[in-house]
């Protein structure tokens, strides 16, 4: 029994398809939807001095921007009667998704896939592939 659909959402077309798929499936089951927006960030990248000085300011702006992407779609799903929550996180997308999934035992991860052609999908679907290999819960990749 799936209780939570964890959806990777960043406002792009593939992620919209994933969210649509997940919300339809959740509605039928009476499950909740958790919208996760991961901002790519590595604590081991190199920054210049000015970037270090401006990092905090920039981070606040990035979070506001990410919220502006996530909050409206969550609101829309809520008016459709779904139970929706959301998280905006920094880090490696696959790692963060797996970590969140670990906290929701009866959950499933839903992500979109960019590529359409065979070759492209092999190179582009890296998030889907890493999730399939590492996720503690089932993963659905929406083409």
């Amino acid at each position, binding site marked *: 029994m799936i209780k939570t659909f964890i959806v990777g959402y960043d406002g792009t077309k593939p992620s919209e398809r994933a969210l649509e798929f997940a919300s339809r499936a959740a509605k039928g089951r009476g499950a909740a939807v958790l919208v996760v927006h991961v901002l790519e960030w590595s*604590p081991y*990248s*190199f920054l210049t001095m000015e970037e270090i000085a401006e990092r*905090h300011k920039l981070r606040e702006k990035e979070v506001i921007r990410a919220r502006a992407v996530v909050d409206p779609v969550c609101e829309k799903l809520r008016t459709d009667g779904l139970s929706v929550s959301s998280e905006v996180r920094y880090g490696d997308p696959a790692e963060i998704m797996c970590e969140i999934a670990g906290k929701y035992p009866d959950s499933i991860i839903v992500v979109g896939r960019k590529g359409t052609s065979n070759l492209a999908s092999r190179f582009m679907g890296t998030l889907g592939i890493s999730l399939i290999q590492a996720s503690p819960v089932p993963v659905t990749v929406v083409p």
Partner: protein
Amino acid sequence: MSIFKLGAAIVAALTPALALAQEGGGIDAAINAAVAPVSNFIVSIIFYSVQIGDVSFPLIVGWLITAAAVCSIYFGFIQFRGVKHSLDLVRGRYADPNDAGEVSHFQALTTALSATVGLGNIAGVAVAVSIGGAGATFWMILAGLLGMASKFTECTLGVKFRRENADGTISGGPMYYLSRGFADLGKPGLGRALAAIFSVCCIGGAIGGGNMFQANQAAQQIANVTGGDASFFADKGWLIGLVLAVVVGMVIIGGLKSIAHVTEKIVPFMAAIYVGAGIVIMISNYDKIGWAFGQIVSGAFTGEGVAGGVLGALIQGFKRAAFSNEAGIGSAAIAHSAVRTKEPVTEGFVALLEPFIDTVVICTMTAVVIVVSGTLDSGLTGVELTSAAFATAFPWFPVVLAVAVVLFAFSTMISWSYYGLKATTYLFGENKTVENIYKLFFCICVVIGASMSLGPVIDFSDSMIFAMAIPNVIGLYLLMPVVKRELAQYQAKLASGEIKRFH
């Protein structure tokens, strides 16, 4: 300002100078004559030396070493007791996942390191061992180890007394802990005066040691590998300088972060190649390593064949360590204070690794490679000696080294331009016009530094960097108790579990 306009502005500003420079040594001589008396006067004060036997000992070197030793004792050799905690912090063991997206300790460390790792590690060490003998290395390592404690103190203070600007950015460094920290001690006037002196010296150091010296060495190295005196670049330092100035301008005025990003990524890579090559040379000469360290230790106490004996070796080693890792100078405190951290002491813990990596690891490696390669007695010095030492194992290495020197010089210039900028904004306030004048002047100095051999100007700028240590170290002595309190409350929080380990 668009990049093209900027480039045009720099070219326009420099055309008369270049025209003169091309005519030969005329402008060099004119500038030397104008600057030399002032420069010599300042150099003679900063590098005021006492005669000990037949050696002159620059007091400023003693000033820095004493500060490092006092900090080491006052904090109970925190550089050895705290090193495990430092590594845990850098590895992100104590990083709160909710703070992801802020500058990590690793990023603060690597950025501060990219400002200090550079010509000092390659050329400076070669100068030290060519004058002070192998034994200079021993004193350099000792100074590096002690310097870890002064770095710990100044970087903790940098965070403790930084100022948050209305726009969310942070300003910090010795000028802020001198002015704000001394105000807390009830000495606001003294604090403001020392902060102003520090800022003036910092701008001088940024323009000189952080810029002209770097540009000059980069241009020389490019000319050397492309054929020495016969090279197309031999008398075209201004051309290399102009290219460098435009690239520097693109980053600091044009805000082209991508260039800085590329170099920030290449610099650690070059450092890795350098250290890797050094390790390979040491492994292939493994039978001589014991002998080399024997030379280093015995040379340190016998001073055999060194002008000035033991003291000569000691001065060279101490001086080189101070030049290279900048502990006690106060520059790193500017970089570290921009990091958002709840506990000031954590930045101190992270920063104390810098003199270790810079001096105890990289500088020592250069010295050992020079000793085992047998090039120490070749009569060469500076970059050429290091280059020759590495070439004994890898004939192609001088080219790699030239690329590394240019990149290191570039990243040092970018970092120091920021230090100078922070000192400028401290003196004149956050003002775009003043900032742009400073940045444009900085770019012009790149060309001047690359095209001329201005001995007095370079002496002057080196002395400016050391002059920063005078107000800074006074600040360290008076504000040390603040750091001790910070350290005590932090360790109490660690012990009580209030500061958690997350990973």
